[in-house]
């Protein structure tokens, strides 16, 4: 008895919370956490549309699985970058990584 | 309400049917049955630990030529564990200074929850299963993978270097051993064509241990590592890092880690029985329904299941009291250089061979084909190991005579090379050493 729009609204809210985290946090790891929240929001959308419109086909599930895969790859590479930057610059604050700026 | 009906239902493990007959069917009754089932299952898991701890202590004592608990509760010390639990319950609750309050207190609760959650898909007897998920095995892997993080919480939350070291070791070991475990489990999943635990039992007209012995062995070794039992118990190695991730826990909080360890061991023994030993199957007797409609066969199934489970539990304890602890590098080398390649090859071979066997083939013919395949892979693996061992002995001066097996460093720590290859023990190569000539495993003391 749940209208489709409820899932979409939940997903929208989660996406915006993640977006706020990405834009407002200083720590690069926290920014990555925001990105993960946004990817989760996308996945809720995909599964909700799958369940309401094409439950007899696998397209929604397949796409959600690919998003999951990409999220795993993104987290691995992103955190490796953070560790590498921390080693060379002794900081993971995104604003302080401005060598290219000046 | 009929007492005789109730007794017969109890005896045939069909209490749910009795409740439906008595109170009528409806959503309320189903909810009652579900909640009752959950309460019964988790109570059973928590209570059987009291018996398991006593059993383990007795077994290990016998194997080490001791008597074991023999004072509290009669000659056999049956109430020893009850007394221990009382002691744990009356202990003071201690918080280490600088501990992370949330993580420190959440970890013992979460680890017991994770240990109980997996029991939902354990089939005890025909129809006696928490919930028959069609992704049962995947569910188990997901929960056990997520429960690794609880150990990290405990290690980090304790604000103790030994605890953190233990947690790092635990994570490295458990995350690594999940890989061969899942790969090995894919073999019975391919053979059964389903991930549901009940479906896998139904598919075993011949127990899968005869169709996939190598997969069973890999799964068993990974299980030992996943539960952190000897010889893979270096996440709580007493002589190196005192007690690992639960060093700062006392009283019942420690008791909960202990509890979860035993529940997990029994669960993995049960899963091994379910997947490889045919679970509750006993020549069709487990499906026997009496003339007045009570499925008494379930009781036979339950007894058979627990007989097999306790046999596997005995094997766990046997291994525990026999083998010494291995080193961190050995444990990871065994995983990444031996178990993962073997299980990958096995998975490819089984997938191809099982596809080639036509669907209508006799079960015994299918078994023989798979058994031959397994023997071929095992022989090839042993031959490769033997060649490598021989090369390594020849490459090291004086290697072969003393029986000490030496292998050159192969790159993973090549930065500190000393020119000549350094002798270290490598687990697979021990197979090639003459019996009795093995060097004792030396645990480095820091």
């Amino acid at each position, binding site marked *: 008895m*749940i*209208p*489709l729009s*409820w899932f*979409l609204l*939940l997903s*929208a*809210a989660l*996406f*915006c*919370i*993640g977006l*706020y985290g990405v*834009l*407002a*946090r200083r*720590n690069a790891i*926290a920014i*990555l*956490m925001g990105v*993960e*929240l946004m990817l989760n929001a996308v996945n*809720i959308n995909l*599964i909700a549309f*799958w*369940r*309401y419109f094409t*439950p*007899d086909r*696998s397209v929604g*599930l*397949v796409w959600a699985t*690919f998003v*999951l*895969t*990409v999220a*795993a*790859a*993104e*987290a*691995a590479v992103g*955190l*490796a970058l953070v*560790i590498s930057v*921390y*080693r060379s610059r002794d900081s993971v604050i995104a*604003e302080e990584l401005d060598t290219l700026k000046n | 309400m009929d007492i005789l009906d109730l007794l017969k239902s109890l005896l045939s493990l069909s209490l749910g049917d009795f409740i439906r007959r008595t109170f009528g069917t409806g959503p309320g009754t189903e909810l009652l049955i579900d909640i009752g089932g959950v309460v019964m299952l988790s109570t059973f898991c928590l209570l059987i630990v009291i018996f398991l701890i006593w059993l383990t202590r007795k077994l290990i004592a016998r194997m080490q030529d001791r008597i074991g608990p023999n004072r509290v509760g009669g000659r056999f010390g049956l109430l020893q564990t009850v007394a221990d639990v009382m002691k744990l319950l009356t202990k003071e609750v201690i918080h280490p200074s600088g501990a992370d309050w949330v993580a420190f207190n959440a970890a013992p609760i979460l680890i017991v929850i994770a240990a109980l959650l997996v029991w939902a898909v354990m089939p005890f007897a025909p129809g006696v299963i928490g919930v028959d*998920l*069609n*992704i049962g095995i995947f*569910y188990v*892997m*997901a929960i056990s*993978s*997520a429960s690794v*993080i609880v150990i*990290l919480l405990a290690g*980090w939350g304790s604000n103790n270097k030994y605890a953190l070291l233990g947690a790092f070791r635990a*994570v490295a070991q458990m*995350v690594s051993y999940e890989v061969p475990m899942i790969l090995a489990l894919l073999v019975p999943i391919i053979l059964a064509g389903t991930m549901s635990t009940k479906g896998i039992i139904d598919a075993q007209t011949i127990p899968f241990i005869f169709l996939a012995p190598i997969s069973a062995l890999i799964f068993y070794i990974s299980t030992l590592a996943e539960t952190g039992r000897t010889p893979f118990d270096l996440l709580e190695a007493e002589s190196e890092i005192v007690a690992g991730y639960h060093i700062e826990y006392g009283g019942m909080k420690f008791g909960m880690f202990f509890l979860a360890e035993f529940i997990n061991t029994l669960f993995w023994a049960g899963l091994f029985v379910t997947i490889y030993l045919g679970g509750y199957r006993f020549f069709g007797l487990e499906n026997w329904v009496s003339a007045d409609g009570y499925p008494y066969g379930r009781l036979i199934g339950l007894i058979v299941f627990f007989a097999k489970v306790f046999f596997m539990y005995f094997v766990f304890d046997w291994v525990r009291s026999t083998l010494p602890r291995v080193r961190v590098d050995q444990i990871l080398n065994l995983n990444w250089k031996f178990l993962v390649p073997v299980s990958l090859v096995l998975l490819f071979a089984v997938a191809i061979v099982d596809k080639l066997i036509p669907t209508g083939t006799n079960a015994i013919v299918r078994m023989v084909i798979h058994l031959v395949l397994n023997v071929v892979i095992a022989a090839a693996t042993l031959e490769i190991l033997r060649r490598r061992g021989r090369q390594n002995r020849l490459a090291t001066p004086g290697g072969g005579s003393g029986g000490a097996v030496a292998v050159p460093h192969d790159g993973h720590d090549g930065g500190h090379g000393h020119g000549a290859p350094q002798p270290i023990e490598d687990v697979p190569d021990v197979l090639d050493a003459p019996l009795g000539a093995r060097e004792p495993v030396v645990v480095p003391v820091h």
Partner: protein
Amino acid sequence: MSQQIIFFLLAAITLTSAIVVVTMRNLFHAALALMVSFLGVAGIYILLEAPFLGMAQLLVYIGAISMLIIFAIMMTRRLMQTNETPFNSQVIGSLIGSLLVLAILVLVIGRLYPLAPADAVLQTAPQVDPAVLQSSVARMGRSFVSAEAYVLPFELASVLLLAALVGSIIIAWPRRGEEDNQ
């Protein structure tokens, strides 16, 4: 009705812990809240009758990604002990910006999929034969390796994972010079 209660519970858990993730100063606690949020999303998947994805969420997000994040936090933990604000200078702007995005999304969703829709499909999830949902995992697996469906994206995903694996090891590997300096 019971489904609606479960939905609201899960949504509350997910959104509350998501807000904790983006506002908490202690990064370790933020990562714990992130795990709770992932758990809530996994519950939403199971509510949508996609238990396979729910379990995959558990396996990948909580078992792997949260673990990586917690490890990264531990390795950079010296930075956690500062009392500085966790936000950068554009905190007000990003709050307004994300609220604007939320407003636009709510507007669009409300226009396309109204909360009290007349269309029966949008009112509640369509009744499907349980067998169809039960076999959705099998269908998904087959479409991953079928030439008519998604075999190419599937192989690309595996290449992507391999590239990520190799790449992250190379990036995070300490260079010889740096090792000497420390």
